[in-house]
């Protein structure tokens, strides 16, 4: 499963949204995720991908694609380091 597919599944499940609305260019705001929802979502992402997301990283997230990019970068950096 790609990173995008994983987060689509997670968002659909956590926020009871329709998977077809979860296109990469959709902004989190347009999906109805307010700042608190984003914080909760990032918490679950940290669990799912076994990474840590700093507050600075979160500031630049607008769309689902941004989320995918940040996850993939952090997975590479943080897991690369560990191994």
């Amino acid at each position, binding site marked *: 499963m790609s990173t995008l597919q994983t987060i689509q599944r997670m968002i659909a499940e956590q926020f009871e949204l329709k998977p077809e609305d979860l296109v990469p260019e959709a902004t989190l705001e347009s999906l109805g995720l307010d700042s*608190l929802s984003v914080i*909760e979502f990032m918490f679950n992402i*940290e669990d799912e991908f076994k990474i840590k997301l700093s507050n600075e990283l979160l500031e630049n997230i607008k769309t689902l694609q941004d989320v995918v990019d940040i996850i993939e970068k952090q997975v590479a950096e943080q897991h690369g380091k560990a191994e």
Partner: protein
Amino acid sequence: MSRRVVITGLGVISSVGKSPDEFFASLMAGRSGIRRLQAPFADKLDIRIAANVPDYNPADYFSKVKLSGIERVSQFALIAGAQAVADAGLEIAEEEQTRAGVTLGTGLGGATTLEEGYEQVFLRGDPRIKPLSVLLSMNNAAASHLSLTYKLQGANVTYSTACASSAIAIGEAYRQIKHGYADVMLAGGSEALLTFGAMKAWEALRTLATEDPNDPGASCKPFSKDRNGLVLGEGAAVLVLEDAERAVARGAKIYAELVGYDCSSDASHITKPDSAGQTRAMRSALRDAGLQPADIGYINAHGTATQAGDIEETRAIKAVFGEHAKVPVSSTKSMHGHVMGATGAVEFMAAVLALHHQAIPPTINLHQPDPECDLDYVPNQGRRDVPLDAVMSNSFAFGGTNAVLIARKFA
């Protein structure tokens, strides 16, 4: 400015009922909501009985998305609040929103969240806890969710005065309307503290009733010689209070008028109740109501079923109502348990429903008369068709706060 304040809506979720009708029917039937707690930690408790909300499934009331931001104590408040608003047929126009508010009482607030968080960091060494823990556990969360849901833009205040919290919340809401600061208030209390840590803390204080060997439901025995303590409960009760003119103008159903309230502090001991402070609160509430003791047809007692507490309250009632007072006094805690921060609201609602139905709920499990508790406690059997014009509800708290509310038939 002094305006009349009426009660136009009721809502409750408790161990004995999830609506005012079910709640009052249980009380009149003498049905106890006290039972052996089924919880993962129950076998580590010395005292396993509690008055929990039975068969409670949050998903019956809230969407999954909503639930992640609303903890048990707020869920109860929202459920009771929704009932009360619907019961009152309350609509708050946009221009009225700043004249509408909410006051709630709670003792421990979001106890479940706090305990889960502590368990994670202290026991499991998790580096993180739930991201919304602060917002879930803060004491004013329940009131704030009511404010958000109904766009109440006036006062949004949470009172935490232990067992008197929600009686104070109702009394202060009454003053908001009486003195012209608001036209409509949601007022009540919510409590959800049947958690492992909280129950252990109460065990340690040695004020909890032990389980009745024959019937766990009969463990709380207010005013009975064999009483040995209180039983923890959970739930919420919310009332709609309204400026009488507004309520009459819109043709609202009016349960009763809230005519009297006051509070006092014992200032004598952190836990030991003091009839002098209780007496002052009752007298002062009567004065506020412009009523004489003889006008009160029923008192819903604080009646926790501790040895000292029931004697002291009896003394206080005698001081106000006379040594040979005939006024019926009952402790419905014998059925719904001690709902702590919500108990004042739950019990005031019982008193308002008693007035509404002209029926007095009993004190159950009262089988051994105590010479030091010699009032009419309506033992074991409720009474119907009692002409009631005014009723009183007492709430006396750890910390010394005493709060008394008086409701009267609206005429």
